[in-house]
């Protein structure tokens, strides 16, 4: 396996041009922590962004940061934190769920459109990505967007590339819009609600003027720590345990114990709303929300490490870390979330799930046998209008089951056409998203 590691954009162009001549397809790689997403790689060699690192632009007053694609995400986040800012969309860390190691890169956050719980209020990675530089399949360095947040000049190729998993080209640099970190964050927790009532609570809250930034529901049974229960203790689980401990230690002493206390409340369902604001507004808004939602009982309030640990598990689907299950992500209208899970549970009684995005994102774990439940899951959500994406499953299943929601014929044709328009020789990650494209 050849790994190309260009250190300049010109070198990257050269690599691509030479690969086009040889016809050997390339896997596109950042830190490798998300290489299990999509269909299994068909590429014999790899083009890595590891040699392209460093912050290229940071203007706190303009709320914009740019970095070369291989820059560690952690460096971007630390740089922003020094000035009290952050990426608005709370990108998920896939290491826990996929059992991978390595350092996530900012380029992969763009290439995978990787967002988290905050998406519901502040938009996805694609909404904050305002500029890219990319090597297309002709070996040309092209740009789209720029460094200003309002820009409608020409076709928005930024959006196309966000979430294209390297199939359209090799990102060399990305520019994101950023936001100030909130002064204070709290989580309100209601216990014991069934799914439908919980999503109704979240809908009421999200339709209120009190602006929750994240809204999730963990049904009864979700929240037991995978590594401390009886599941497989092979390497993914061990990695997950180590990562979790590292994360916990970053959050200060006592975090593990206390978050375990919350985690071990797993026999009871928990419904979560997160508020972010100036401190006085938090006091006011949490009281208003509690009053508005009083029919569902009185909420507990979590703050600091407890709140952070809980949302990290929601963000990273940490509840499914280290298990043998296949994991799906369903995107639906929020009130259809519980309808979809009820329909799926009828056919796949072992299914477990939890909800983010106010009910509109269902994380679903099912036995990793046969088609990983693909036919049943897609049949269940079809009448509801939504998409199912297979996030974690053995290679053989991800090769045989469509990982992304199958497309209607005209959209499949458009997708293939767009791929060809960027990459006529088909050298970038062939088949990573759809078989034959």
């Amino acid at each position, binding site marked *: 396996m050849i790994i190309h590691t260009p250190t300049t954009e010109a070198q990257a162009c050269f690599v691509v041009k030479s690969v086009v001549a040889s016809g050997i397809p390339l896997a596109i790689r950042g830190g490798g922590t998300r290489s299990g997403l999509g269909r299994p790689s068909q590429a014999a060699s790899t083009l890595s962004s590891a040699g392209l690192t460093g912050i290229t632009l940071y203007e706190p007053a303009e709320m914009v940061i740019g970095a070369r694609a291989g820059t560690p995400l952690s460096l971007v986040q630390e740089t922003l934190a020094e000035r009290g800012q952050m990426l608005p969309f709370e990108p998920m860390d896939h290491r826990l769920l996929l059992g991978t190691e390595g350092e996530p890169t900012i380029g992969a956050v763009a290439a995978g459109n990787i967002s988290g719980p905050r998406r519901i209020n502040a938009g996805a990675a694609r909404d904050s990505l305002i500029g890219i530089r990319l090597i*297309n399949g002709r070996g040309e360095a092209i740009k789209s967007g*720029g460094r*200003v947040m*309002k820009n409608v000049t020409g076709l928005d190729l930024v959006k196309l590339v966000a979430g294209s998993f390297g199939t359209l080209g090799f990102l060399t640099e990305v520019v994101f819009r950023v936001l100030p970190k909130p002064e204070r964050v709290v989580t309100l927790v209601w216990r014991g609600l069934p799914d439908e009532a919980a999503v109704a609570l979240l809908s009421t809250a*999200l339709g209120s003027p009190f602006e929750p930034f994240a809204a999730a529901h963990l049904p009864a049974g979700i929240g037991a720590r995978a590594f401390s229960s009886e599941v497989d203790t092979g390497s993914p689980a061990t990695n997950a345990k180590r990562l979790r401990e590292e994360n916990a230690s970053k959050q200060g002493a006592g975090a593990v114990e206390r978050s375990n206390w919350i985690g071990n409340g797993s026999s009871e369902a928990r419904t979560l709303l997160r508020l972010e604001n100036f401190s006085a507004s938090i006091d006011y808004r949490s009281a208003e929300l509690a009053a508005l939602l009083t029919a569902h009982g009185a909420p507990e309030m979590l703050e600091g490490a407890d709140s952070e640990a809980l949302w990290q598990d929601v963000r990273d689907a940490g509840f499914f870390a280290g298990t043998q299950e296949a994991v799906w992500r369903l995107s639906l*209208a929020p009130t259809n979330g519980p309808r979809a899970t009820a329909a799926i549970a009828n056919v796949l009684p072992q299914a477990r799930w939890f909800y983010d*995005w106010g009910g509109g994102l269902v994380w679903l774990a099912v036995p990793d046998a046969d088609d990983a439940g693909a036919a049943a899951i897609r049949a269940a959500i079809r009448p509801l209008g939504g998409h199912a994406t297979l996030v974690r499953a053995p290679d053989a299943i991800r090769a045989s089951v469509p990982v*992304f929601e199958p497309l209607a014929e005209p959209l499949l044709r458009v997708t293939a056409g767009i791929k060809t328009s960027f990459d006529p020789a088909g050298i970038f990650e062939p088949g990573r998203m759809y078989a034959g494209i």
Partner: protein
Amino acid sequence: MSAIAFPVPDESILARRDEIIAGLSRLVAPEALITSADERRPYETDALTAYRRLPLAVVLPSTTQEVAAVLKFCSAQGVPVVPRGAGTSLAGGAIPQEDAVVIGVSKMNRILEIDYANRVAKVQAGVTNLAVTGEVMAEGFFYAPDPSSQLACSIGGNIGMNSGGAHCLKYGVTTNNVLGVTLVMLDGSIVEIGGAHLDSGGLDILGLIVGSEGQLGIVTEATVRILRSAEGARPVLFGFPTSEQAGEAVAAIIGAGIIPVAMEFMDKPAIEICEAFAHAGYPMDVEALLIIEVEGSDAEMDAQLARIVAIAREHGVKTVKESKSAMETAAIWKGRKSAFGATGRIADYICMDGTIPTGQLPHVLRRMDEIVKGYGLRVANVFHAGDGNLHPLILYNCNDPVEAQKAEDAGMDILKLCVEVGGCLTGEHGVGIEKRDLMTVQFNPEDLQQQMRVRAVFDGQWLLNPAKVFPLEGRVAA
């Protein structure tokens, strides 16, 4: 520079006009087909009124299926198509050409579904921007993008141009607020992209469609996010002795971690024009005015405003004037949103729409003034200060061809300046015909060819809104 060029009309299409009209008449109801010169006249231009061309025919379908039938027919006949929302484009995005059929969505103006629990509305493309908010206001909701033309402009047009507005600093522009569309492709296929859910896997074709200026297909329905309004909103006027101080105050507010819902800038000429029109109580003895709007409960607004006022004082603010009533709030926004119309009462103007990195604001304001004065003209500036989206209004007399040319030249110089300092040609109005020939200033040939190859996936014949966005020379086909 010379006036913006239009392609030479295709004689073979003009010669087949009767045949084409007969074909169209078999596809749509008689009242949906407009053929007489008098009735076609309203469709010959949009808000870029200096340019006009009478289209071959105008079709105003009532259903997605009619749009599909007309597109399929035009594609088979090789006839160009110009999609049209409400015709409020300032960039000439809806200006037709003599050999083109205009497909207007104005009759498709129904709100199809409001779903408060899921916070979405499904509407037809001809619904006006403000009508969406109007429909959900009683329940305390609103549709966030608010272009100044929101009373007239359509959701279909907003999607075509990825429209913004004054409140996008907090709530984003059209692309951040649209979840799904029904798109009719050139061959007549009807596709559903997205829906009432947020992101799903697969290429983000929805993100590509928004802002594609009608060159990839025609959107007939859209599912948009509706948001719950804040408990209250209060705009406050801040008058500064210099534009520089106003610009610095904006940077300092953001630096303090405060994102107001809107931060609008007006310079002295703009203040005078808007005050004369709206009687909003704008201070007249200052060089620059910021309208800063905060949201929340009364106590929250008080707290946020106290912080903003303190910062403004550090930057030499001369006047601070808070809205004390809903009427005052309405007057303050009326003044700002009617800036273009009010300017039109005293002179002809062209409105530019470049965006700059906000740190470049003092430099760009100075240079713009020099540029316009260099042509012997006047400029009034209104813009979205939080995001650097400028709207210089260059005043001129349209009956004087020399002055008209100077105004266009000054505008082009300003846009080049925006690109030079790291910004872009257009922040929210779109490229249309107006900035088409400047695209090579912002993009190199490889950038543009990549965009055109993507465009060709949808329209290899270059029939959809063909004379827009991309320079007429050097076009890439499928």
